[in-house]
């Protein structure tokens, strides 16, 4: 409710090395994940990551229309990242995807695809929908994290999960998992996704100003963060089979 009153904070890290939301430099925000929350989708995940609220749904493998879009030897993975109108402090007008959403949908698809046995279902499509209900910094990595579990929930054969989180440069320091103020006023942002088993990097973007050494330590920190995310993902999948029914509310 705050966009009328938004103000740049004086500093993002205090004298005790604490961040504006009280976290340490290498600390993730609290994460909560529910698997199987949407009845219609083949797989679905609801993820709260700090103040982000994200839904991911997977439909497929399914027939493709029109047919000439199908691939003879593999599945066509399609991703759609979108932000609901009320997800941001300023209302996001509904309509065709904006340029940012189109780019994000592409890089998310490319982050997820290496983890899927796409040769298993030639000529089909798998649709991944990521809906940002509330946005608070790091929605693309939250989206990848949720979508990867939703793919597993849909029973899509996978080589590995995909675990994602961002690192950034804030008040000259490399920190894990930027929140929205750090994202807005920090000096750099680097979202990363990996396939945790072999530590293959499937998403890497960077904005800002990093020396070569900063880049190196940021990447290491990001991979460490992704490994923590990986644990959370595995636990959520296990829970899915413990509970009778998992409700969104």
């Amino acid at each position: 409710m705050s966009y009328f009153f938004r103000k740049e904070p004086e500093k993002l890290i205090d004298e005790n090395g604490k961040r504006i939301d009280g976290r340490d430099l290498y600390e993730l925000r609290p994460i909560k994940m529910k698997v199987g929350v949407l009845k219609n989708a083949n797989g679905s995940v609801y993820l709260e990551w700090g103040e982000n609220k994200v839904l991911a749904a997977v439909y497929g493998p399914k027939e493709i229309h029109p047919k000439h879009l199908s691939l003879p030897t593999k599945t066509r993975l399609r991703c759609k990242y979108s932000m609901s109108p009320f997800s941001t402090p300023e209302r996001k007008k509904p309509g065709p995807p904006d340029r940012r959403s189109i780019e994000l949908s592409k890089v998310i698809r490319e982050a997820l695809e290496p983890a899927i046995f796409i040769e298993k279902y030639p000529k089909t499509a798998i649709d991944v929908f990521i809906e940002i209900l509330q946005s608070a910094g790091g929605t693309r990595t939250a989206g990848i994290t949720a979508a990867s579990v939703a793919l597993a929930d849909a029973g899509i054969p996978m080589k590995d999960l995909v675990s994602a989180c961002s690192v950034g440069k804030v008040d000259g320091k490399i920190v894990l998992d930027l929140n929205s103020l750090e994202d807005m006023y920090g000096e750099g942002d680097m979202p990363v996704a990996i396939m945790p088993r072999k530590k293959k990097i499937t998403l890497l973007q960077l904005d800002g100003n990093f020396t070569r050494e900063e880049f190196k330590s940021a990447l290491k920190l990001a991979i460490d963060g992704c490994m923590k995310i990986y644990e959370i993902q595995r636990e959520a999948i296990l829970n899915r089979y413990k509970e009778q029914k998992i409700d969104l509310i």
Partner: protein
Amino acid sequence: MSEIVATIRKNYIRKILRSNKRMDGRNLTEYREIKIEPNFIKNAEGSAMVSLGNTQVLVGVKAEIGEPYPDSPDKGAFITNAELVPLASPSFEPGPPDENAIELARIIDRGIRHSEALDLKKLVIQEGKKVWIIFIDIHVLNHDGNLFDASNIGAVAALLCTKIPVAKMDGEEITVENKWVKLPVKNIPVTITLGKIDDKLILDPVIEEEEILDAKITICFEKNDLICAVQKIHGPLTTEDLEEAIEIGLDKSREIRKMIEEAVK
């Protein structure tokens, strides 16, 4: 759904309807379980997550400062929008709102408008110059039938918990204070949706029922039992059907209204 599957299902549903029961064990005029979670979205000025059985709808309310319509300089405005995002159903396609999404938004809008649920005159910052524009965004998350009632409950609950900051105008300058007040909501419109199969009216149809309905009707009731909006959908109805629907609706609408008021307390 193939035509054969539809026929088989229709016959099955009809058969149990003859004994006044539904597929899921409900009575003809029984709602599924209703859950309302207000203030679900922090970035919205108001919001509500609603589930009606497996139908899930999230409604967010946002407020912006804008200009009034030229023909009502003394009134704020509101805009109702519905998105049937493809995440919610295999039958929803990406793209601009189709006729179903538009009909949904327009019916919810009409209920709010004609019951004067929002006191638009209180949304004026300076007459003829600046007013609050209220956006009601209906986001369907899982479609398992009866989107109208779920959306209406969500929209009204979201409005009831909406707070907007105090805004003032001094010359051409607008000041927005970090002081929040409740949106002036003075009525609670409630839609009641019934389907018709053969000669039976059934309340709150689930999607498998919706797909084989002969007709559907949504009636919106105000607090004082006035009818403020009606929309017949799909096939034909008789005068008797309508009278029965109103009979059922009057009753149910009072229950639902109470439930909403309870949830946003």
